[in-house]
């Protein structure tokens, strides 16, 4: 546990030691604001809720989370610091978790900094703040899912650009797993029950109810087990590829 905290602190500190953190946060805030107001018509709808804000988060994360995740392991491998990290008395699992948590908390900080939109909506009307809090939690969980995928892919390559692109593609597939675009493609190839299984992996389906403020334990379990699975794969890949 101590080791996880040590790694976590070092990683989180390194975001703020470079422009990465500030660029990310500024872009995230601008984009999330722009999407809520221009695409989601937050004002024009005349409703005191934040669903126009939350409904675009999956699309925002699709590009921004891989940008954070791509450096997690690829940079360590490129700069050779992975040799240092792996010869310190820390297990691979502890490093994977520490790094993941740092990146996740960092995204959490960016998410918290969207609070002016929450103040705005409270000023304009009388929204259900319980629903908003639940939606924030749901959004944070989904970000964790994207991030775990990205962290795992980042461990496969030394090249951050490749890590970014592959992560975006895989996240895109997970996002749209429940949509006709993906399902029709698979329908011709594989039996219906597997197609159903694929559709049940969709980020959008699981996020949809969370974004409405409904915390269904099945959705939470889905995201938590997704994170667990990808981080486990991440650990194995780091072990395998660390010295390549």
């Amino acid at each position, binding site marked *: 546990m*101590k*080791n996880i905290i*040590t790694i976590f*602190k*070092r990683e989180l*500190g*390194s975001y703020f*030691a*470079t422009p990465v953190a500030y660029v990310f946060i500024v872009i995230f805030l601008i984009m999330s604001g722009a999407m809520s107001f221009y695409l989601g018509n937050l004002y024009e709808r005349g409703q005191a809720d934040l669903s126009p804000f939350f409904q675009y988060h999956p699309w925002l994360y699709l590009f921004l989370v891989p940008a954070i995740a791509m450096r997690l392991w690829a940079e360590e491998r490129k*700069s*050779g*610091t992975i*040799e*240092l990290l*792996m*010869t*310190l*008395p*820390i*297990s691979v699992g502890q490093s994977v978790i520490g790094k993941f948590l740092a990146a996740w908390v960092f995204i959490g900080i960016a998410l918290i900094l969207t609070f002016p939109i929450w103040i705005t909506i409270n000023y304009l009307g009388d929204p259900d703040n319980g629903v908003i809090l639940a939606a924030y939690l749901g959004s944070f969980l989904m970000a964790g899912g994207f991030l775990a995928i990205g962290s795992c892919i980042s461990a496969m390559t030394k090249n951050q650009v490749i890590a970014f692109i592959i992560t975006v593609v895989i996240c895109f597939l997970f996002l749209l797993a429940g949509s006709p675009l993906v399902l029709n493609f698979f329908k011709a190839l594989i039996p219906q029950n597997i197609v159903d299984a694929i559709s049940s992996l969709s980020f959008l389906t699981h996020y949809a109810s969370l974004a409405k403020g409904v915390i269904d334990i099945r959705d939470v379990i889905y995201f938590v087990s997704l994170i667990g699975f990808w981080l486990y794969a991440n650990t194995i890949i780091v072990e395998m590829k*660390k*010295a390549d």
Partner: protein
Amino acid sequence: MIKIKNLSKKFGHLTAVEDVSFDVQPGEVLGFLGPNGAGKSTTMKMITGFLAPTTGSIEVCGFDVSEKPIEAKKRIGYLPEGAPSYGEMTPVQYLEFIAQVRQLTGQNKIDRNKEVIQRLHLDKVLNQTIDTLSKGFKRRVGLAQAILHDPDVLVLDEPTDGLDPNQKFEVRELIKSIAPNKVIIISTHILSEVDAICSRAIIIADGKVLVDDTPEGLRNKSSSDKMDDIFREITSGHIS
């Protein structure tokens, strides 16, 4: 101490290290010599637990590196080739991170920090990011990291590479001063270094140990008195 038995490492078809066995006792400074690509770094990476051996075993202070990696790693200080470190950190932050990982606390942590900073003359660059430091300072930050927890076993992969003559001298003095009661393995191309600090030299080429002797013993093997000539003769197969 270190016990290495029948150590081999294969990368696909390539055999990087073949059937290497040796022991190193406390107080010994072992110089690892050999041409580029001879298997020096690969052997060191296996001792420090970064690479898993294909066959054979390594024991560090009584702990098998494959079976009890964390226990073994706790007792090792390692400077990887090229001295990689986190460039966005300052030496102060970096040493603090290493101290936490090494579980140094309280007065001991303060004392050890002070000592390595003083010994490696890092005081002037403590608050500069490592990225902005010269090669010599980067190397010294890497060394500071390796000796911070006062390890029983020190593995240094080309510790003086990229240093100027004065810095080389200082690093050699440092190694000499911590050598008693410790196991130190250094790899180098520089033969005068072996003469200066090592009590024992292993010459390795194509993954095999060719010679395991004292620097004096090496000299006696050759007609020439120069270490460079001895090295060339041995690695090109003129002496067996």
